[in-house]
């Protein structure tokens, strides 16, 4: 995008020049790019905090920070990673970039609301930063804000809650936009049976965003009211019930983990057929299992509360339902693997991330089964095994899917290709570092090390050191990956329309796509998303 001679698509076409052309743009691609920039920044900030956490845990006792700082650090790490990175990551960034083009639309249904949602995101991010640096100090409640602690601590919980509220609002607006867009703006011939799976998963995600997110909003507002007016809604002495808070919190936050993973699964379902040049195995099973995950995901929230003191009957019900959610995920795994059968497999960087997604997510998900079983969770709850589980699903799962998406779609939107060899090396380092870090964490969790522990008993030292060591490998790999991508976007070789030989619509428009995606004519779709016959990859 530096030389003006080459074609630059939507990067230059704008009704307004300069920075305002971005900040006031209602173009889904520009909004997507703005989201992407913010999200990657947030990821790096959050990840550096994670690195600091690991550094503190390299030895028992105090190493680089005191207990209060540690607590604030993991809280901020969690809030940034959950609300500012992972929930918006694929839907808001890649969803905005790709979804309208994939269904043959010129934009989303409500472009202005799309922009508003970005502003909500940014104000949420600013509030969150404010919460760290002002007044009573960074919040120290953990990202779960459990009462009564969150109503008693003197740190900036109110601001952090408000930030999460704004981010939730942003997420709701994106969800409303996507549901409406998918229903109303599909191009001619784009039947439900021809929707790419990425769209299906975004559709399922969007419904969760719409129907679950308000619950976190009201819950956090109640915490803020409790802190400012002493409302006592969760205070046992005043007729409240602290466990009820946990219900309300997880009613949102469990479905939220499927907001996180579903779009990632969508990315994988795009990448695997493309690099196997074969239709996705079991299209309808994949599409419907996405909806099934979204629906069943709203039935299982209390599996986070087995030890909270809730009734044993609830444990019976929720444990049962938790196992039911695992089934559609299993279906997806099996279908991805079968897609490889008799394909023509190319191990390009996106494919490597996609395949390692399957591996990591299987570990994380199978660990989830141990957590879902009532007896086993009693031992594992709130140990670093849970921390391992969710880093495997969130980072190993969605994080890797996000990296796959970066490697897959960035060339489309920047018009330039990164270097493949460094990309593969970076992938290998990330993969190895990731598994060392979190495998060690899971192991020490099984031995009984509680999470959110600033200090630990000496028996746990070795495994913690392994985990810290792994996190450095991971960080080195990520640094290499980001540098390679950045250089690729700035100065890589120009690519044509379709560098990977993929069959969905976004690969039929120029790279980068022009302002309204399609020329004068609206596209007419005549084939499925994974019919590769006659689709040829451009040389680049």
């Amino acid at each position, binding site marked *: 995008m530096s030389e003006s001679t080459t074609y630059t698509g939507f990067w230059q076409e704008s009704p307004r020049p300069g920075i305002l052309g971005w900040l006031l743009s209602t173009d889904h691609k520009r909004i997507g790019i703005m989201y992407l920039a913010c999200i990657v920044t947030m990821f790096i900030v959050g990840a550096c905090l994670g690195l600091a956490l690991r550094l503190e845990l390299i030895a028992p006792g105090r190493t680089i920070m005191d207990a209060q700082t540690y607590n604030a650090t993991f809280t901020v790490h969690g809030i940034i990673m959950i609300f500012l990175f992972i929930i918006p990551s694929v839907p808001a960034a890649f969803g905005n970039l790709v979804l309208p083009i994939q269904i043959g639309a010129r934009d989303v249904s409500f472009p202005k609301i799309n922009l508003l949602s970005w502003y909500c995101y940014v104000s949420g991010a600013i509030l969150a930063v404010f919460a760290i640096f002002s007044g009573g100090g960074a919040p120290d409640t953990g990202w779960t804000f459990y009462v009564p602690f969150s109503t*008693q601590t003197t740190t900036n919980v109110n601001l952090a809650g408000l930030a999460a509220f704004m981010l939730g609002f942003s997420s709701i607006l994106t969800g409303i936009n996507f549901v409406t867009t998918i229903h109303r703006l599909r191009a001619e011939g784009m039947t439900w049976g021809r929707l790419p799976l990425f769209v299906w998963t975004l559709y399922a995600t969007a419904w969760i965003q719409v129907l679950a997110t308000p619950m976190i909003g009201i819950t956090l507002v109640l915490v803020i009211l409790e802190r400012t007016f002493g409302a006592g809604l969760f205070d046992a002495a005043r007729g409240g019930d602290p466990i009820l808070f946990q219900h309300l919190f997880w009613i949102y936050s469990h479905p939220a983990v499927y907001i996180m993973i579903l779009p990632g699964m969508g990315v994988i379902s795009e990448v695997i057929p493309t690099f196997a040049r074969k*239709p996705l195995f079991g299209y309808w099973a994949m599409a419907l299992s996405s909806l099934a995950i979204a629906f069943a995901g709203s039935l299982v929230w209390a599996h986070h509360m087995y030890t909270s003191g809730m009734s044993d009957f609830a444990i019976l019900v929720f444990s049962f339902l938790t196992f039911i959610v*695992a089934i559609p995920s299993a279906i997806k795994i099996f279908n991805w693997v079968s897609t490889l059968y008799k394909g023509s497999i190319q191990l390009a960087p996106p494919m490597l991330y996609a395949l390692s997604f399957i591996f990591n997510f299987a570990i994380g998900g199978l660990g989830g089964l141990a957590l879902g079983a009532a007896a086993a969770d009693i031992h594992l709850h709130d140990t670093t095994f849970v921390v391992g589980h969710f880093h495997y699903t969130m980072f190993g799962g969605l994080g890797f899917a996000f990296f796959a998406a970066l490697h897959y779609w960035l060339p489309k939107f920047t018009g330039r290709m990164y270097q493949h060899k460094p990309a593969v090396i970076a992938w290998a380092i990330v993969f190895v570092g990731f598994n060392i870090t979190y495998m060690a964490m899971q192991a020490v969790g099984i031995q009984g090390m509680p999470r959110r522990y600033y200090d630990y008993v000496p028996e746990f030292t070795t495994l913690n050191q392994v985990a810290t060591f792994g996190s450095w490998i991971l960080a080195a790999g990520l640094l290499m990956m980001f540098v390679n991508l950045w250089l690729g976007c700035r100065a890589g070789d120009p690519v044509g329309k379709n560098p990977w030989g993929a069959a969905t619509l976004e690969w039929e428009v120029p790279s980068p796509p022009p302002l309204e995606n399609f020329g004068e004519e609206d596209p007419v779709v005549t084939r499925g998303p994974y019919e590769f016959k006659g689709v040829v990859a451009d040389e680049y």
Partner: protein
Amino acid sequence: MNPNINPTAQAVDNVLIYIFGFSLLLLLGITVATIYLVIKYRRSKYPEPTSEVHGSFWLETLWTVLPTLIVLTMFWYGWTNYLGLRNVPEGAMEVKATARMWSWQFEYPDGRKTSKLFVPVGQPVKVTMTSVDVLHNFFIPAFRIKRDTVPGMETYVWFQATEPGSYDIFCAEYCGTGHSAMITSVEALPPEEYATWAQPQPPSAEPRGLIVLQEQGCTGCHSLDGSDGIGPSLYQLSGQQRKLLVAGQSKELSIDEDYLRRAIREPEAEIVSGYDPIMPAYDSDTLSEEDLQAVIDYLLGKATVPAAPKPDASVLLQENGCLGCHSQDGSEMVGPTFKGLGSREVVIERDGKEERIKVDRDYLLRALKQPKVDLVKGYPPIMPAADYLSTEELDAIVEHLLKQ
């Protein structure tokens, strides 16, 4: 129940092994299949795919039904073993646990309190728990048990130690700055050792006279707090007027040592009016002369001074969780260390203004009763007010701290 297996750990481990075992198999299967397919069908060997299948109904059904069956067994096994963690065996010893930021207090059936949990090996123990401030969680990895303590609510766990030893108890629910320091232990003692430990300590804290009153069963008829019973109350007798019936004749006197001695040794002689003459006589065989003296001293209020020992400050610091936040050896914890406290000058913040003051009695009392008034600079304002302590206890603590 076989005393050699750790019942709760067994229940959990069964499930863990079952699920992890299955998971390992599945993971291995999936990974091997993926790697095999990727190598076999690499593009350099197959430039175009050799199949165009879109799916297979039978395969989809297969891998819907199979995982369903697998997860249902996992669920059921997990649930039934969980019940084993909930159903407390008969004859369990009951202990009450109270969690507070950031310490534990255990109370045994006999009223004794400790900050570590002492249990006999081989006997099931049921711990009934609550919290006085925020959520905490009682977690013993060795027994695989874990349960939140919730303010305003009671929860319980049970376990049975099979080997003597010391097992860590962690707080596994995030509860603020001292969360990771909220560690104590189960001290499992062989039954005989436990029995010795559980003996009531001989030098009792209570005045001898009171003990005698209780041992002799006097309190079955006399209250000690002024309320009426079968007999008159023994509350603050010194100097009181009494109307008596002596051999049918009415008589009045004020209570003194002699009167009390007679009232105990020959109760039928003088009857307090309004009461039935039913009190048994206590001769010197039943009640020794010393004991009688002790009782009389107690009843006249003379005994309390020497008999009531001062509360033991170091025990109080332990029991009330002070040491959860303050160290005694100078090391930095959540609150300022107690070491050298008595001879220290501290910088405090009062109403937002800083002030340097010398630590003295008044300051320490204020620090305990209204910790939010003077905040020691550099520490978070999180110390709970120690208003649940009695004046004597506070005095003892302050005196103790001044000597540090």
